[in-house]
């Protein structure tokens, strides 16, 4: 008990004696025989403890003994409660969200079972210390206390990283003083789920964008890995691309909170090769604390000393290797490692399988585009004039050699123009359309209308839906 407790008791009794109208400092001072200055100090201490409160009337403060709402109900035994109080206390106690009552000095006057389960019974302690471990209130409840707002709705993170939704209002007590009643909900799971869904949507959007925007494989892998980490929170991750011609694996993007050593890279290659060989995902899980691992993929090859050493050295728990495969080919492997104690859920694994298909599809498309760009370059640098037209003979493309031989400077001058602007004989176009291809010498027409004879080979190109284009290759060596 504090030394001042005797004085505190006298002050509280004095206020109670004066009655429900409240007591001014002068009135209390006379009854407890303390001078104003000393009394004020004690009054403020009592107020800080939540035992008394005051109401500002003009320039004077009128003091009351705190009669906090709700609080007394829970201090009564069941027998002492009225029927209404019993029902009310049970409802409040069992509510699936937190109910908190504070006085204007942030003292906790009441917390229901929900909050007691989260923070322990902290009645009498300061709200901001219990919830945020802080000397000051980081929420907007001060706005309520200062009377600037009628209600506060805020989302904050507490001292243990929980995300809380707080909705608070002032309530007037029977003695005329005010308290704060707050409804508090732990929304950590919901926020995390929302964030996961947001990240997932973003991941799928990025996958689509990466493929459509002609990202490089490097950009695709790093973008996916970065965003995948936001969704499932792995500790190390890498995407290794397989080159079947060279039988080699290359890392285009990796993430590691540890830094990646040569030994880790070697482990990654071992695991990636295994996933590619099996053509299906497998997981290597550390069990107990022995440093040994167990392969959950159905087959049980020895993981090898080097992999076991990595699991030990980096304190890893799970190594997931997922092949990146499309229907036609395997393009590499996605590797995800988690630190000790962190296991991926089934949902995470489903996500990884789904994402790996999308990554593989993206890689296949990028590879195909790169290959076609290379082939297109061959056409561009070819010494032979090459052109394409629609099946009706309208020019859609001409390579630089064609432009040079026909006397044009830019492709734009040629595209959209008819067959007859470049060739004297229109009948050949009909023959190509009918027979599909044609080879022979033909009289060509230059930009300046001069004519020359040149060997032409032309063929129709047929696509999924029918004739697409006509491609012509001219042998410029024979003039």
């Amino acid at each position, binding site marked *: 008990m504090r030394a001042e407790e005797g004085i505190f008791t006298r002050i509280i009794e004095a206020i109670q004696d004066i009655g429900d109208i409240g007591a001014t400092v002068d009135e209390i001072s006379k009854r407890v025989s303390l001078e104003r200055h000393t009394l004020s100090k004690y009054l403020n201490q009592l107020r800080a403890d939540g035992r008394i409160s005051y109401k500002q009337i003009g320039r004077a403060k009128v003091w009351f003994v705190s009669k906090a709402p709700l609080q007394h109900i829970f201090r009564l035994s069941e027998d002492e409660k009225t029927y209404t109080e019993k029902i009310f206390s049970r409802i409040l106690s069992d509510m699936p969200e937190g109910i908190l009552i504070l006085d204007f000095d942030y003292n906790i006057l009441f917390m229901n079972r929900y909050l007691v389960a989260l923070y322990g019974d902290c009645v009498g302690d300061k709200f901001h210390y219990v919830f945020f471990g802080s000397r000051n209130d980081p929420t907007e409840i001060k706005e309520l206390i200062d009377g600037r707002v009628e209600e506060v709705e805020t989302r904050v993170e507490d001292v243990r990283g929980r995300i809380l939704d707080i909705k608070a209002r002032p309530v007037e007590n029977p003695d005329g003083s005010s308290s704060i009643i707050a409804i508090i909900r732990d929304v950590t799971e919901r926020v995390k789920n929302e964030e996961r869904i947001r990240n997932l949507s973003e991941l799928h959007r990025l996958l689509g964008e990466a493929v459509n925007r002609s990202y490089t494989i490097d950009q695709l892998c790093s973008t996916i890995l970065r965003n995948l980490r936001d969704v499932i929170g792995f500790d190390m991750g890498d995407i290794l691309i397989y080159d079947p011609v060279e039988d080699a694996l290359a890392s285009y993007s990796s993430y590691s909170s540890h830094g990646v050593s040569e030994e880790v890279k070697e482990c990654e290659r071992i695991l990636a090769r295994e996933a590619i060989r099996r053509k299906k995902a497998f997981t290597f899980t550390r069990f107990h604390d022995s440093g040994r691992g167990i392969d959950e993929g159905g087959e049980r090859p020895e993981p090898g000393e080097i992999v076991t050493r990595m699991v030990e050295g980096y304190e890893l728990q799970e190594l997931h290797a997922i092949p990146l495969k499309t*229907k*036609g*080919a395997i393009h590499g492997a996605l590797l995800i490692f988690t630190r000790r104690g962190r296991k991926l859920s089934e949902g995470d694994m489903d996500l990884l399988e789904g994402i790996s298909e999308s990554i593989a599809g993206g890689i296949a498309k990028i590879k195909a585009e790169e290959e076609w760009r290379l082939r297109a370059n061959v056409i561009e640098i070819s010494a032979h004039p090459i052109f394409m037209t629609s099946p009706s003979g309208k020019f859609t493309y001409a390579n630089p050699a064609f432009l040079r031989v026909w006397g044009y400077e830019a492709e734009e001058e040629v595209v959209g123009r008819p067959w007859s602007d470049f060739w004297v004989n229109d009948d050949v176009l009909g*023959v190509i359309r*009918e*027979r*599909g*291809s*044609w*080879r*022979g010498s033909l009289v060509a027409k230059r930009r300046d209308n001069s004519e020359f004879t040149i060997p032409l*080979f032309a*063929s*129709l*190109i*047929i*696509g*999924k*839906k*029918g*004739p*697409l*284009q006509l*491609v012509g290759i001219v042998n410029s060596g024979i003039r």
Partner: protein
Amino acid sequence: MVWYRKETGEEEVTTAPASWRATVMVVDDEPDVLLSVTQILDANNYRTIGARDGYECLMKLRERGDVPDVLLLDIMMPGLSTKDLLNYIESDNRLSNMKIIFLTAIHSQEAEEIGLLNSRQVVDFIEKPFTVRRMLEAVEKAIGKESDSESE
């Protein structure tokens, strides 16, 4: 030389040239592809039979007295699966000399993965889009004759 064909490629030629280079059955569910390919083959002295899906191909193979030399076959078609059609062809001794060329939008790796390239009768695989030149060469190679389609 004049002969007629319905737009779908379904009907046979009514007046034939004096000598066909070979008979080719074309199976494709895209009417424009079917029409173009049969017309081009016709123009290159091939006798052609068109079918719009696997069932129609199967019925025509069963009903006809003569056997096509080459079957130009799309892989992705509604109805009877290509695999079932191949199984039927392999089981019918009458068709054992018919050469099959795939004409398809899927990649050869995918076709290999689903076991379509295992048949000894499959001699070529042409991915769409393809040049007519490539197709004619494949047909010529299948029937073992040199091309004469290049000259005017």
